[in-house]
């Protein structure tokens, strides 16, 4: 199978975009060919889900995310990937990614986590929210039978990284919380083989499953989509409060954390919101948590809005710096100086970036090579 056919099989805009920087794996592609057979109905997984309880009379209640879907026989939760069969809850996406690429870690974005390295990035169909701006809606808002999936056992995912010398696996593109069991098992195998795991998430997960998962992960990037509950209710179809609680939990439990805030014109781009956001981060997480402001491009259900003006992003940047955040970045603006990391003590460029590329690193271990100031993160 050639690369073009592989991408057709994946059927995902994000994957297509990502593939420009991707090497593909013949050992994985061998598995994909089966998934593309014309007459075969899509085979879904049937692995019992974790974190659910049986209800008194009939049905189950999912306890993996704050939505707590109550699901009766043969129905699915909001995510569309978990199904009740005779009051046993199953994940249908275990071992069935629909997108798989090698990305720079900067693309996640994780800027303080092994800069300049790559991550095997994978996703299954489904999501537990429905953001109107989603860039990957073709997979995140689909049920697994609507995507082209291919079998990839957790051990195979890890072995591929070992063979290809890819240091990290990123659970990304859609929402890893909905393929929790698969992510957990890959991460666990990865740990044994020295492969890192990073979760790129909206953070809409319950406390207990996150607590159990964090020891398997090396870093988490949370999309904090807004600092206002109303935005979460109307644009994200989720809730803000549990996300804030989980951010605090991640920080408390000691897993490396970075935050992305997608700035959507007219919806979450006021100076008051940037100020509120900066103050919340500083108060509850500390001023050294990298905070990325990402530029919005019209997508999915928000095609009526323009891309975020650069000026708005720069305003966010300035406000956060003025509020004392030490590592503020702008994303989706290649070439901007705010893509680089600066030492908060001496102002020197410690990691110079352009787009997803690391051009120069001026670090001794995790210290600024000029003034010896400690730069937080995992660098070596």
């Amino acid at each position, binding site marked *: 199978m050639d690369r073009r056919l592989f991408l057709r099989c994946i059927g995902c805009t994000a994957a297509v975009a990502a593939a420009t920087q991707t090497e593909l794996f013949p050992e994985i592609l061998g598995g994909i060919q089966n998934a593309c057979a014309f007459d075969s109905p*899509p085979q879904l997984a049937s692995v019992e889900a974790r974190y659910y309880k049986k209800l008194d009379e009939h049905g189950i209640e999912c306890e993996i995310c704050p939505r707590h879907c109550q699901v009766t026989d043969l129905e699915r939760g909001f995510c569309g990937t978990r199904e009740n069969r005779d009051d046993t809850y199953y994940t249908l996406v275990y071992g069935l990614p629909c997108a798989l690429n090698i990305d720079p870690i900067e693309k996640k974005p994780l800027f303080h986590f092994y800069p300049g390295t790559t991550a095997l990035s994978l996703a299954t169909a489904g999501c537990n929210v429905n953001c109107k701006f989603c860039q990957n809606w073709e997979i995140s808002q689909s049920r697994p039978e609507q995507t082209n999936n291919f079998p990839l056992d957790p051990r195979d995912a890890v072995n591929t990284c070992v063979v290809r010398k890819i240091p990290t696996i990123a659970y990304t593109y859609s929402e890893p919380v909905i393929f929790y069991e698969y992510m957990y098992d890959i991460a666990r195998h990865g740990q044994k083989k020295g492969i890192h795991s990073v979760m790129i998430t909206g953070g809409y997960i319950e406390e207990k499953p996150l607590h159990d998962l964090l020891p398997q992960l090396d870093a988490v990037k949370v999309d904090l989509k807004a600092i206002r509950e109303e935005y979460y209710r109307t644009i994200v179809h989720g809730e803000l409060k549990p996300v804030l609680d989980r951010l605090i939990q991640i920080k408390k439990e000691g897993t490396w954390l970075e935050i992305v805030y997608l700035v959507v014109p007219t919806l979450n781009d006021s100076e008051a919101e940037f100020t509120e956001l900066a103050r919340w981060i500083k108060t509850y997480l500390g001023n050294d948590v990298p905070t990325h402001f990402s530029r919005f491009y019209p997508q999915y259900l928000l095609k009526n809005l323009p891309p975020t003006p650069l000026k708005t992003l720069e305003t966010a940047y300035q406000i956060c710096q003025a509020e004392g955040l030490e590592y503020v970045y702008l994303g989706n603006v290649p070439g901007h100086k705010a893509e680089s990391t600066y030492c908060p003590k001496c102002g020197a460029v410690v990691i110079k970036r352009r787009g997803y590329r690391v051009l120069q690193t001026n670090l001794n271990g995790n210290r600024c090579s000029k003034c010896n100031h400690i730069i937080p993160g995992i660098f070596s």
Partner: protein
Amino acid sequence: MSKVVVVKYSGKLSKQGCTPEQYLRMLSCGFKLLTGKSNLVKILQTMIPANSVIGMKTNCLARRHNSTPVALTQALTNILTEAGFDENDIIIWERTNRELSQAGFTLNAASHGIRCFGTDTNGVGYSRDFYTFGDVNSLVTRIITDIVDYNINLPVLKDHSIAGLSAGLKNMYGAINNPNKYHDNNCDPFCAHISNLRPIKEKNHLTILDAIKVQYHGGPGYVSKYIDYYHGIIISTDPVAADTVGLKILQQIRKNNGLPVLEKVERPVKYLKSAEQIGLGVTDWNKIDIRTVTIDKHGSETIGELF
């Protein structure tokens, strides 16, 4: 006024439910009552434009236990072919081939014979563009957008653990790509808004609600201890009125079996009012002209009551 016809069968039914012949009698009687005309062939030729590709949206969630009966589709197909429609222009459909197969349907995507396939069939899938109404943004199955001209909705009357009622409007969840996103707030107003998505509204013309066997609690899956028999079908060109009558029957069966009304178990069927508000049909009992008839095993018809 919206006319709703309820045809009940008083003869003995087998464990499998009605035979195609029994359904044929019920449908024949129902169509005549619905239109006030006596020639069944002419009735269908008047209702459905010539050369239409006709869809039959089934509900196959409960597999063989309590899905749209194959016998109902066979009876309807007989009537349609009798009226001159090509059998290859009839498509029995559902979300997935798996669901159809598990409900007892024989898949066929060939260019001869009655077609039967799911949206997941290669080359079918969902619309490229989103359709939006109110709180719903969805891709719609190409069976509705591109393939059929006239859809007949063939739901099964059931209790629904979230929506309260699973009938015609709820069955259209099977026509979109993301039904799992629309179950909050007792599926209100989503149930109404999905049926008001342009291609669905334009092509979904007739509801035949199967209420031979009713899952009056524990639905929409199959729970044998909560099955009761109404022995009826409900026919209307008003999807909201059909569901309103279906709800009345469901509530009565629940009462007969000692269960509280749906409102008391936090499953009020709010979406019917929402559907009325956007002009999909009527819920006002004073605006629904209900004709109930009972037919016996010899085909004799008597005017009857809902209960």
